[in-house]
């Protein structure tokens, strides 16, 4: 079974969906309930070996549908337009990170093709014909609106509130509560980032802090252990700045080596994640930006940890150390 999305032709422009072959259907196709579809690159690879399949026919349940467009690889993460019910998911929100649907059809064409097989969930009355959405007393459609200014947003809110009032007067709606969250508000409302993940992020930084204190201590011991060596360098004319710089270079090198070790461990960890049967497995890879950030963080943290020990080492008095040689 391939998941299908019934939507309007504006979907592709609004969410900037890239096309490999063909294009979205037209508004006229939408209103004439044409049997046309846009398919994902994954489905195109599977059914047509990646070739241009525009114009080919797809059998969906009992209907023949003509392919008008094939998407390029498109992987929004999370799959924002399908996010819902996150408050009931108990932090198990990995399903928000699935790949997009395989088949996209004009809204009413999709309803007709899949007639009788829709699964009503949030309803406030008995469904007369199960699997039939149009006149069901259920929540069954999500609307996305693009509004370019604050005034338009406010106007649209008023419009929705008025519509709800009007429908209540007509006896269709029981209450007139309306809400219109922005995309980000909607994602937050649905706990797209589970609280366990936030907790683990905090934990990671606490972990880093403890490692930093540890490193300060170890570097302090490491540098001061070589006090006599530093004393000799100082006696031979090295300035405090030179000693300080030497120590910092050492600390920085520790950071670079540690960063590379950490990078290898990260690759191992991501490889393990990719082997898990989770929806976001294909997203678990390290990009250049993240790699650079990690390495920079490792070096910066090591340099910060090296500051105090380097300062102490540069204050070693030359004479005192020479005496104890």
């Amino acid at each position, binding site marked *: 079974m391939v998941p299908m999305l019934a939507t309007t032709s504006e979907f592709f422009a609004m969410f900037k969906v890239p096309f490999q072959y063909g294009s979205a259907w037209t508004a006229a196709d939408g209103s004439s309930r044409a049997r046309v579809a846009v398919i994902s690159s994954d489905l195109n690879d599977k059914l047509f070996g990646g070739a241009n399949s525009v114009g080919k026919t797809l059998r969906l349940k009992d209907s023949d549908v003509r392919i008008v467009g094939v998407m390029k690889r498109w992987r929004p993460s999370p799959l924002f337009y399908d996010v819902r019910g996150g408050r009931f998911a108990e932090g*198990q929100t990995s399903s928000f990170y699935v790949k997009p649907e395989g088949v996209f059809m004009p809204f009413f064409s999709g309803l007709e093709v899949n007639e*009788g097989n829709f699964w009503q969930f949030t309803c406030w009355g008995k469904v007369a014909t199960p699997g039939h959405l149009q006149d069901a007393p259920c929540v069954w459609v999500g609307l996305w609106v693009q509004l370019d200014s604050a005034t338009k947003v406010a106007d649209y809110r008023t419009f929705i509130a008025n519509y709800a009032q009007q429908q209540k007067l007509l006896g269709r709606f029981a209450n007139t509560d309306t809400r219109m969250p922005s995309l980000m508000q909607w994602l937050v409302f649905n706990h797209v980032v589970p609280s366990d993940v936030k907790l*683990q992020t905090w934990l990671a930084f606490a*972990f880093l802090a403890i490692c930093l204190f*540890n490193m300060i*201590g*170890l570097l*302090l011991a490491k540098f*001061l252990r070589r006090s006599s060596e530093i004393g000799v360098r100082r006696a031979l004319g090295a300035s405090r700045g030179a000693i300080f710089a030497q120590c910092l270079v050492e600390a920085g090198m520790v950071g670079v080596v540690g960063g590379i070790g950490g990078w290898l461990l990260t690759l191992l960890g991501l490889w393990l994640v990719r082997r898990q*049967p989770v929806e976001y497995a294909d997203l678990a890879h390290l990009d250049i930006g993240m790699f650079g950030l990690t390495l920079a963080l490792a070096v910066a943290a090591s340099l910060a940890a090296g500051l105090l020990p380097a300062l102490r080492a540069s204050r070693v008095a030359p004479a005192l150390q020479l005496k104890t040689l």
Partner: protein
Amino acid sequence: MTMHPIFRTWKRHMAGIVLIVVQIALTLAIVCNALFIVGQRIERMRRPSGVQEQGLIRISQTWLDAPDAGTPAGVDKLDAMQRADLEALRRLPGVIDVAASDSMPLQGAIWSGDLRRDANQKRAMGQAALYYGDDHMLPTLGLRLVAGRNFNPEEIDHHMLRSVQTPAVCIVSRAVADQLFPAGGALGKTIYVNRHPITIIGIVALLQTPTLAEWGRDWAYDSILMPVRLDGASASYALRVRPGREQAVMRAARDALFAIDPLRDMPDTWGLQTMREIRFKAYRGDRGTVIVLGIVCLILLMVTAAGIVGLTSFWVGQRRRQIGIRRALGARRLDILRHFQTENLFIAGIGAVLGVLLAVALNLWLMAHYEMPRIPPPYVFAGVLVMLAIGQASVFVPARRASKVPPVVATRAV
């Protein structure tokens, strides 16, 4: 033994001591709270579901050629398809019992209803998960009946989930019985589920709801069995099989069902699974958190121990001459060993005191942001003991090296 030689040296090592103290305090705070979270998650994962999990299999599938459920004839056809499946499954070797059962504990998908003791109560007294199935459901799931009886075959109805028909009888979990009738005597009473009157004919000891989600947390064991085979394009079955035969039965069940009707969607991921798998999946997040936090705690303790070993080794190296002098003046090796052990006990003690304060502060912060209960004192005490023990253990190697410094060092290299 005298303490002042310990404190006299502290002035020279202030930076190192402060570092160890801070590190111990931070480690203690994080390890205490992390272990507390781990403990809570383990407790959660250990909760019983109420069903006999060993030898229990769930099959869930969707007919691709399902007849139109909009007509009475269609509904009857769907029920006939379901009964044919149940019959075929019942004949498989290794199967003890088979039931129509739309849901299972921990499995996720849930139908629920609100509960009232009389129809006119304005506010519902609570909610319960509704388990739809036939008269085989109770024995197949392995539920323990504590009062009343199981459904009779003639009490089993069949209809669509959203049908207007409602059953006349039900079996409730003890949690539901106790909630609606705190004084007892729930058996035989009529309750209102979604405002429909239903008579309680049996009470089972324990039955967890199918959801672990937050909104169902307050009624995690409030469940009701409904004598209805649900008709629809999808149908689910529960199988009780002989222990150890799960995999063989699942293979045979797949073949048997596809032989009846090959046009069905029944993938490995959710179509055929043992209760063991269902439990494993349900607690995947909790288990992940337990593993991550456990490993992090372990590494943190190791890092802190390594830090203590490093700095103490350094101090021992720095104080070789002083140690030699003390030895020459008559201190025994044991005195030197004790010196370092005691020194570490003081440092770790200060760190632990700070750590307890930090741990409580961290717990308060977590309580404010992440729905965490107050950390029980035993966790904090255990954390303090662990930190002191780790301090003593990690200081032992350098301290023993210090105690082996010969007195003759005092006479060299002045």
